[in-house]
């Protein structure tokens, strides 16, 4: 069964520091007056233009195995093929900020407002991650019911953790988007899949949310494709599972440290 979720925009406005870090500015560097002004303007644009929405649907391991196989282009071996069969709960998901933000960025570049355009782009990239995080909390709540017990089905142990994985990363070929879209139908929240497997609006994320014991999410980043990965984000994601409450916490304007 599919569920759509409207996400409050104030929950997905990233903290100034997060945006600066996304633009390569070191944590200890104070922004100058001009940069600070552009940063605030970008966050204002985001507040006024973003319409975050998400969709998710529970999927069985068997169905997910078919979706994950996609066009048969995944790297082998890869981490997710050994993670998802051990999961307690799997949910396909897609989340977007809506067309307004994605359309505004090229307009700003066209107007010659380069710094604002690039800062809004960085803020929106962080924002859609926050939207995915928000949706992840909803999905995790379904997978791990309140009160600490497991579902009547036996799934969702209280120490279970949820992480998300997306086509185009960690060996899951981006062509996997086709099977994911045909099953989930993210068009319902305004996301379209282009022939190149790119999503429109650009500021959208799709994938699977995997809930299960911490250990199933852990893997070494020594797959052949890991050497070409620029983000290496898997390390922080895995580490966060051991040190934080279920799910990842990212900084927002009301919560700059990202604490739960």
């Amino acid at each position, binding site marked *: 069964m599919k569920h759509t979720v409207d996400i409050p925009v104030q929950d997905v406005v990233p903290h100034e520091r997060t945006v600066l870090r996304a633009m390569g500015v070191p944590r200890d560097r104070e922004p100058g007056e001009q940069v600070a002004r552009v940063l605030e303007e970008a966050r204002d644009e985001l507040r006024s233009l973003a319409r975050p929405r998400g969709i998710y649907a529970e999927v069985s391991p068997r169905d997910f195995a078919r979706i994950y196989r996609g066009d048969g282009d995944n790297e082998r071996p890869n981490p997710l093929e050994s993670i998802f069969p051990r999961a307690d709960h799997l949910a396909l998901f897609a989340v977007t900020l809506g067309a307004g933000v994605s359309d505004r960025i090229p307009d700003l570049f066209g107007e010659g407002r380069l*710094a604002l*355009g*690039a800062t809004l782009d960085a803020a929106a990239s962080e924002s859609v991650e926050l939207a995915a995080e928000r949706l992840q909390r909803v999905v995790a709540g379904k997978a791990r019911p309140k009160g600490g017990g497991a579902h009547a089905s036996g799934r969702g142990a209280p120490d279970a953790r949820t992480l998300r994985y997306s086509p185009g990363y960690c060996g899951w070929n981006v062509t996997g988007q086709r099977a994911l879209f045909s099953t989930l139908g993210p068009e319902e929240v305004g996301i379209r899949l282009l022939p*190149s497997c790119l999503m429109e609006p650009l500021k959208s994320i799709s994938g699977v949310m995997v809930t299960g014991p911490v250990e199933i999410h852990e893997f070494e980043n020594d797959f052949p494709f890991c050497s070409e990965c620029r983000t290496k984000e898997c390390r922080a994601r895995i580490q966060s599972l051991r040190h934080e409450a279920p799910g990842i916490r990212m900084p927002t304007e009301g919560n700059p440290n990202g604490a739960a």
Partner: protein
Amino acid sequence: MELLEQIAKELESGDDKAVGSLTRSALEQKTEASIILNEGLIAGMQVVGDRFRDHEIFLPDVLLAARAMNAGLALLEPLLAESDTPARGKVVIGTVKGDLHDIGKNLVGIMLNGAGFEVIDLGKDVAPREFVETARETGARVIGMSALLTTTMPSMKEVVSLLKSEGLNGTVRTIVGGAPVTEEYARDIGADAYGFDAANAVERVRELTN
């Protein structure tokens, strides 16, 4: 401080109003547009590029400087066009067919412009033939291609092959970049260079055009 030096300094600090006003003053003093461009704007942008490469300043500072450069350039361009002053060379850039990500490509364009190249930006979702035809029509020396998806990267190879089949591979050089693109991939498809970020791309283009 000399006026041209002042233009460079204000550009470095990203003050577009000051750069515009100083450029106007320099023109009123009958300084040649090409001298203001080279010794004021490009000199300032060169410092910005070097400091960015050395991690002394960061992307927002570069973009504010680029906006300041554009404020000066807008005043100079009509005069430069009249005097037919040659740029360092023309570079055609674009995001390849099927790909709509253009921030990285835009940054490369901004920095190439700042380094004195004439940039012909074809935008995003650019077909291989459009790259080649534009390079032929404009006399561009370099084609720069960006891709953010593995599914769209093969389009880069098509451009390289097309240049070869049309006998342009000796005169028009190619550079590729984007998150999934690697130096090895660039070599495999026969591209002339790979830029791992915007600042590096400018250095590679300089090498290709020297």
